[in-house]
């Protein structure tokens, strides 16, 4: 076979793929975000900025702030759990590290919705956690652990935490052990060691995790639906409603464009601090 034909055969799939399944759909979303919507689901092919203006309506601004807050808190809690955990593992032998990291992945290889259901069973008023607390007389009345922000955050953290643990673990295991030992020999305190050696060396791993937790958390409608009781809205639900209930595609598209922009900004910051794009997909 001629070299040129081979080149053609090898390159065609990726070009077709990029164009048809990435560029085209996103361009189309961008286009319809400038259309008008008729009141029952159709689109009027007429240029307008109305959908973007609507984004700044107080009603929707509140939802933006709300989703960003929820995603931020989720990311923060993921970091607070993952750091000590990853550092604790890194003190173990290589063999044990490998076993622990494999075990960490096990829950995430099962159906994520059934795991949410597991949380419902645990968190509801007649659930295991409340029963336990009531039996030990720690509380007198069952606590409301779901259908509120507590439930949402638990669900979010639980779903996205592997995306934080994995990159952090990778970057922590790349830290030069000798530097750490030298520092502790020289009498650096734990906090100092963390701030001066561990944190800077794991920064890109940390930001990698933060992106992989923060962005899906903005769009993950099913956790909010299930554990939030349908009374909290985030960007994901808002988009879903525009497409599947309110029949306003152009507005839904405009919110999506906003989300794409937000993601792009985060990625640019990540690149700026020296993060590698390939690490984002190296789960």
């Amino acid at each position, binding site marked *: *076979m001629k070299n040129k034909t081979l*080149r053609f055969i*090898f*390159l065609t799939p*990726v070009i077709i*793929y990029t164009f048809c*399944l*990435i*560029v*085209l*759909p996103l361009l*189309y*979303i961008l286009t*319809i975000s400038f259309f008008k919507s008729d009141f029952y689901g159709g689109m009027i092919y007429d240029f307008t900025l109305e959908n973007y203006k609507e984004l700044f309506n107080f009603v929707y601004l509140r939802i933006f702030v709300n989703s960003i807050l929820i995603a931020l808190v989720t990311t923060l809690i993921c970091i607070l*759990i993952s750091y*000590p*955990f990853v550092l*604790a593992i890194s*003190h173990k032998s290589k*063999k044990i590290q*490998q076993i*622990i990291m494999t075990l*960490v*992945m*096990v829950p*995430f*290889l*099962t*159906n*994520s*919705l*059934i*795991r*949410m*259901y*597991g*949380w419902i069973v*645990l968190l509801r008023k007649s659930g*295991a956690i409340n029963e336990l607390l009531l039996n030990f007389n720690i509380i007198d009345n069952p606590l409301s652990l779901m259908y509120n922000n507590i439930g949402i955050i638990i669900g979010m953290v639980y779903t996205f*935490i592997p995306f934080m643990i994995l990159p952090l673990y990778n970057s922590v295991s790349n830290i030069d052990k000798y530097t750490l030992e030298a520092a502790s020999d020289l009498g650096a305190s734990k906090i100092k060691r963390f701030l001066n050696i561990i944190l800077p060396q794991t920064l890109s791993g940390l930001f990698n995790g933060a992106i992989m937790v923060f*962005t*899906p958390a903005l*769009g*993950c409608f*099913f956790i909010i639906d*299930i554990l939030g009781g349908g009374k909290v809205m985030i960007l*994901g639900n808002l*988009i*879903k409603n525009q*497409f599947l209930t309110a029949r306003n*595609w152009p507005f839904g*598209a405009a919110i*999506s464009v906003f*989300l*794409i922009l937000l*993601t792009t900004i985060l990625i640019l910051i990540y690149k700026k601090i020296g993060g590698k794009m*390939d690490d*984002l*997909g190296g*789960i």
Partner: protein
Amino acid sequence: MKNNKIIDNLCIFLVFSFLFLPILVIILFSFNTSSLNIVFEGFTFDWYKELFNNKTLLEALYNTLIVAFVSTIISTIIGTISAYALKKYNFPFKNIILELLYIPIVIPEIVLGISLLAIYTLFKLELGLFTLILAHICFSIPFVIINVRSVLDNMDPNIEKAASDLGASKLKTFFYVVIPTILPGILSGAQLALTLSLDDVVISYFTAGPGSNTLPLHVYSIIKTGVTPDVNALITIMLLFVFVILTISTIINLKRLRRM
């Protein structure tokens, strides 16, 4: 120093209980005689038999497996070829394509889901298994490419050269020399694609149609009305399966580690 170890172990223990608690609940209730998932009333294996009478559930499982395997195979093939081509050849707009490939990885799934739905509607594609598989291929390919590329980058370029010096055609070199060398990357990419596909909710939610209900979508539709223990039973079986595979691969990995 001993103190540190206790803190370490406590920390690991706490995170593990957080990770495994909901799963243990699911496993526990798959053996429960009551169907309500509230209190454990008695031990039974009945739900494991019952499971095979639940046609909706089995159909969802069947669809999930079909979609996962087909999309994994196709995206692994395309991903591998593409990773190789992107490394080997230069062409106009290559850098742009390289950047665009990250989009499915980083943008929120819901955006990918609705934009695929919009395109399907535009081209009047009937929502069903085909559109679902296409969507899964869409988000899997970049993961395969990245995994294959990381192995390709470490491949000794002389191997290919040696093969062609010995008279092997380019195509032959690719199949008999390159592929075996980068196989670990291909397999880890395929594994990732499979995992992502098996558990995808958000993108499937928008791209599935009648008759292409998958297991995650099925669970989503019954989660509020109440999940019956036969679903727990199915999940337990699948978990066992995953666990066996992981144990085998960990043992292999540990052996390799020891050899190093």
